[in-house]
């Protein structure tokens, strides 16, 4: 493969709590994100999606493993120059457009916050221009700069959030459920905007969501995470066409389809970790590339089963 | 020659009036009730030196001698006594059958001469922290050495029980005022075995005390109440008329007592200056209001000769000013004491103003009051406040001071204690009055409010003032006691630092000190002794080292069922706190009645003094 690896996550582990009361939210997670792609991360609530995103952007410290960006290790202690550079290169879009904007600041400040931090905008006029452009880029009118967030609808707010990330001219954007808090009718606005920007600016996305239909629409590759572990990773269509891991299958079977005819007769595959796997005690699972580009978590016996299914 | 006192007549039972009200003059129910805000600190009379504590102890434990209502010494626990010719040895013959009882009235033992020895021993143990031990060891032989542990054998101390009923004191010096000291707490007896038993706990509660006085402390709950019940076994029980004294604690007594008095819940009330008008305006109430009797604490404004205050208040400049006699005299003449006194007593400000440091009715010799003795007689008669003179003196002072390089206005730092409203008020009046009269281009008075915590250490003792109101109370009934503040290293106004010289070129203070020293050692010729002290005091006042201000007016104005002139009188000691012989009036005295009673009392006292002098 000649794609450039932008981000590598190796054996990532994230813990919460203190010594006595440890909770492992993410365990032994591996994946790469290639430049220019959209990498989808799906899984049920509480499975650790956000935690991974935050580990990458360094809100949550990694307890084990490493995160490598453009060949440079960015987990653990880093010097302040790298820190500044990374702040610029990796940005995040948050789930809740209501909660992620500072209600007491004007759009102008919100959008230029990153600029102030990097102090790389030159003159004040220049900064204004950058903000204006960013707003235009996300389809907002420049005059909105002087308003406060609560004057906007959810979709508009989310676009402000995107503009805020964009002015940093990042390479990688971690989009943590950027649309789940939005209304169906405006979700599309945001999705379109994201793909549009990706095309224009060559962005790379880590797209976190639990709405599989959206993820399917937007992602190039998808990783399925369950209880802090990635259980399957494959290119989107491959995953949807032949899901191997029982958890992935159950997830896919549950996606609601806006088609009453289909929907009424749908069958949900249930996933019970206890009965779906074979003797994990004796035979622990490992992360296996079952066919090129399709990874799965399973022990030898399972992997051979999956192989059979593929054939 | 030695003095001998005859045994006093036992007051016969028949002398007690059959009708206790004496035809409606006195109240039927002889129970005294009051509220108080200041709690006694300790009922251990051997250690405390607080006035409120004395007032209580005086009624619980009796002394060798006592004063009557005119201030004449009378036998009490000692039926008779005599002194040796050299005046150093005093022998007392004790009354027999006086009992120590506990707070419930149970007899414990008899009071004997040993109890005075035990008390002295207790007193002289530094571990007991007696605050009056110094009074004792300032006169009794070897007591100070014992206190300081220079000698360890108590037998060497000048107090001895020859037998159960004979007590002998040996003095350091033949001081003429020894009898008067006997009513002070440090000469109180205490039952020895009980002292030993209680040890540290002596006098910490009413059960940790024995009583041989007129009352028992039957209830003692600090910060709540105390009740004194008549001691039925008291040797002079016939002269105890008030059967119960009921003290109720209330921190807000000043605010509430008036109301309680009006509701008839208490027997007396001190009327705060602020509400005095209200009482005086009401005809019914006015008829119950009278001044209270004068005390022996005196107040005077002192000029400080050793200023240590901040440069901001120009201590060097003050030194120049204070050493200029015309400057000081200008202040004296310009000080309208009546005006400032009105803050405390608006109705009769002259009443308490005095021209001397030693108050009138404190000491007398040959029937002449000390304040009328020697040069002091002129001082007493003089009018201090004189505007014209003040202005003239000021102009003179200004001239002289300008010459010596002083700058004007002279800054005068005048501290006051912030916990005293009346002091604060007075200070404001004084400032305004003096500045107005002498001109604020001449003096500029800066009031220095100081918190009560560490007040004296922060102000007077540190020399951190220019002019300040100070006070002094006597330690024994002799004029000598009032020279104490002005001795060398006394921490009042440091007169030894003066640069002033007398007419014959001697340092002024040296001259003053010489007279005082001469007086102090004059033990036999009391007339001469008194005259010397009087001249010394007059010297200080005439040269404006101090400005006599007032004599403590007890509690200002009161409405009270208590007759002020029926109480034992003593210029010093605790006798005047005794309830002996007192009866509650059916109707309180008003001011006119008070004045009449006072005149009557004064005449009777003068006569009694003359009588006693014979």
């Amino acid at each position: 493969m000649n794609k450039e690896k932008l981000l590598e996550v190796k054996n990532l582990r994230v813990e919460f709590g203190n010594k006595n009361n440890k909770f492992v939210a993410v365990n032994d997670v591996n994946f790469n994100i290639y430049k220019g792609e959209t990498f989808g991360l799906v899984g049920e609530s509480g499975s650790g999606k956000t935690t991974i995103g935050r580990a990458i952007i360094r809100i949550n410290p990694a307890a084990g493993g490493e995160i490598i960006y453009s060949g440079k290790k960015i987990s653990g202690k880093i010097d302040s120059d790298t820190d500044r550079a990374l702040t610029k290169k990796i940005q995040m879009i948050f789930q809740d457009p209501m909660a992620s904007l500072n209600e007491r600041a004007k759009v102008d400040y919100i959008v230029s916050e990153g600029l102030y931090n990097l102090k790389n905008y030159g003159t004040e006029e220049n900064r204004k221009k950058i903000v204006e452009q960013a707003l235009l880029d996300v389809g907002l009118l420049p005059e909105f700069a002087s308003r406060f967030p609560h004057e906007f609808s959810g979709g508009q707010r989310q676009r402000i959030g995107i503009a805020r990330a964009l002015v940093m001219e990042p390479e990688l954007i971690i989009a943590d459920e950027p649309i789940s808090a939005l209304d169906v009718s405006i979700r599309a606005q945001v999705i379109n905007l994201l793909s549009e920007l990706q095309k224009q600016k060559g962005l790379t996305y880590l797209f976190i969501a639990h709405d599989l239909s959206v993820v399917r629409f937007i992602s190039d590759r998808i990783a399925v995470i369950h209880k802090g572990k990635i259980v399957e990773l494959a290119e989107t269509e491959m995953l949807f066409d032949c899901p191997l891991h029982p958890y992935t299958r159950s997830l896919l079977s549950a996606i609601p389809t806006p088609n009453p005819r289909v929907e009424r007769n749908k069958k949900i595959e249930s996933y019970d970790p206890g009965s779906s796997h074979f003797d994990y005690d004796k035979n622990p699972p490992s992360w296996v590339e079952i066919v090129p580009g399709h990874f799965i978590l399973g022990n030898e016996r399972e992997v051979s089963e999956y192989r059979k299914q593929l054939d | 020659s030695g003095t001998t006192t005859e045994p006093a007549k036992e007051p016969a039972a028949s002398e007690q009036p059959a009708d206790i009200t004496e035809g409606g003059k006195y109240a039927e129910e002889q129970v005294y009730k009051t509220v108080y805000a200041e709690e006694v600190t300790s009922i251990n009379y051997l250690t405390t030196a607080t006035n409120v504590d004395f007032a209580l102890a005086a009624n619980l434990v009796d002394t060798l001698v006592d004063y009557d209502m005119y201030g004449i010494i009378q036998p009490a626990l000692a039926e008779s006594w005599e002194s040796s010719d050299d005046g150093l040895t005093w022998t007392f013959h004790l009354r027999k059958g006086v009992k120590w009882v506990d707070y419930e009235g149970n007899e414990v033992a008899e009071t004997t001469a040993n109890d005075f020895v035990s008390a002295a021993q207790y007193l002289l143990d530094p571990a007991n922290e007696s605050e009056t031990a110094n009074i004792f060891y300032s006169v009794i032989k070897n007591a100070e050495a014992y206190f300081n542990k220079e000698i360890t054998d108590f037998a060497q101390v000048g107090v001895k029980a020859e037998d159960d009923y004979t007590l002998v004191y040996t003095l350091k010096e033949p001081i003429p005022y020894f009898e008067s000291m006997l009513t002070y707490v440090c000469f109180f007896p205490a039952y020895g075995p009980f002292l030993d038993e209680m040890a540290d706990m002596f006098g910490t509660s009413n059960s940790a005390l024995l009583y041989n006085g007129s009352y028992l402390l039957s209830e003692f709950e600090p910060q709540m109440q105390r009740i004194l019940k008549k001691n039925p076994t008291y040797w002079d029980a016939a002269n105890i008329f008030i059967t119960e004294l009921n003290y109720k604690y209330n921190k807000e007594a000043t605010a509430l007592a008036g109301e309680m008095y009006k509701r008839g819940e208490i027997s007396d009330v001190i009327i705060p200056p602020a509400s005095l008008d209200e009482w005086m305006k009401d005809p019914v109430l006015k008829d119950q209001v009278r001044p209270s009797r004068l005390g022996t604490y005196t107040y005077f404004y002192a000029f400080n000769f050793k200023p240590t205050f901040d440069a901001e208040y120009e201590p060097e400049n003050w030194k120049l000013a204070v050493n200029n006699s015309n400057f000081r005299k200008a202040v004296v003449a310009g000080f309208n004491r009546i005006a400032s006194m009105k803050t405390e007593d608006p109705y009769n400000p002259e009443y308490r103003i005095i021209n001397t440091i030693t108050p009138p009715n404190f000491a007398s010799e040959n029937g002449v009051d000390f304040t009328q003795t020697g040069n002091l007689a002129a001082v007493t008669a003089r009018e201090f406040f004189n505007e014209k003179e003040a202005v003239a003196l000021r102009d003179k002072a200004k001239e002289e001071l300008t010459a010596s390089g002083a700058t004007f206005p002279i800054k005068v730092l005048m501290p006051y204690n912030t916990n005293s409203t009346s002091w604060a008020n007075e200070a404001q009046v004084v400032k305004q009055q003096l500045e107005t009269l002498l001109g604020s281009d001449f003096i500029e008075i800066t009031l220095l409010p100081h918190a009560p915590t560490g007040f004296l250490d922060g102000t007077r003792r540190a020399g951190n003032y220019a002019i300040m109101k100070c006070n002094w109370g006597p330690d024994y009934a002799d004029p000598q006691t009032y020279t104490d503040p002005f001795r060398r290293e006394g921490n009042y106004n440091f007169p030894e630092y003066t640069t002033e010289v007398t007419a014959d070129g001697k340092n002024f203070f040296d001259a003053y000190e010489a007279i005082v020293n001469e007086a102090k050692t004059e033990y036999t010729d009391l007339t001469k002794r008194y005259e010397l002290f009087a001249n010394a005091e007059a010297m200080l006042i005439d040269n404006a080292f101090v400005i006599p201000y007032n004599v403590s007016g007890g509690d200002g104005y009161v409405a009270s069922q208590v007759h002020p002139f029926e109480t034992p009188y003593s210029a010093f000691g605790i006798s005047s706190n005794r309830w002996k012989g007192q009866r509650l009036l059916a109707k309180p005295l008003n001011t006119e009645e008070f004045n009449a009673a006072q005149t009557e009392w004064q005449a009777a006292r003068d006569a009694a003094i003359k009588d006693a002098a014979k």
Partner: protein
Amino acid sequence: MAQKSIEEILNGEVILSAEDVVIKFNLRGQELTAIRGASLDLHKGESLAIVGESGSGKSVFTKSFMGLLDANGRIESGKIMYKNQDMARYKTEDDWIKIRGKEIAMVFQDPMTSLNPLKTVGKQVQESIELHQGLKGEEARRLTIEILNDVGITDPERRYRQYPHEFSGGMRQRVVIAIAVACNPNILICDEPTTALDVTIQAQILQLLKNLQQKYDLTIIYITHDLGVVANVADRIAVMYAGDIVELGTAEEVFFDPKHPYTWALLSSLPQLGIKGEPLYSIKGTPPNLFKEIVGDAFAPRNPRALKIDFEQRPPYFEVSPTHKARTWLLDPRAPKVEPPLMIQKMREKWGALNE
């Protein structure tokens, strides 16, 4: 399966009927019209889904059936007929007490906060039973456990004594449903019952509701903006926009033959219909300000195919079929013939059209 067909239901009894309901709120001196003359007939035993974007009035409309409007809101005009009584006239708490729970129960959106955190789950369910089924003590407890079991809570005996925080989101939502069901109501209003849950749980809850509907013979109103959910559960669909029902029809009709431009837009923007690499269809703009009086069709400013009349006069309902009507001037015979947008056509190709 005893499931009734749509036809049966629609020919059956009308259990609740709202007519020209106008609901207004007073907000800091200003007046906000949340519902602008919406009408709806609810048939016994049906599942009706109300869809529409946030703020379109779905919740307010249904809350008015239970007298649960916030204190600053009121029914300005219109009728809400239930059992021959006009509930729009109800004023006192006493009136509503007869309806709430007993006749109509509601399941709220947020399972995390809808339960009293300080009471055991069992007690909260039991409260409904004691209130509406006249049972007490042990009997009520037994029924509670039965209902907990019914809503798919395993080990209900133990769960009875637990507190809400010991339950996962999905479990809590089941409890909330249990509370509603325990009232033994005729009508169950589910206000976004699954929005907060993830897909697998969502599917379970929906299945559960369907089962309960049969068991207890419930009429259910689903409020949601997830068309997938709608497709799963609804017999009929009401599409709301800006306080009005703009289209109403059977699920098939609305999905396969939508008539209102807003419905078109809604369906078009489904990502399932999108083609990877091409932009999704999206509705531009923002919903109208309800403080202002809305003239004409509320959707007009955002509708690329708006007619001039849309800005002038409010469209009436046009009947497409006896079970299907829509408020849009496009259905007026005088209006130009407008084909549904491309997306809708594509959808038909993909999933088939009505009557196929």
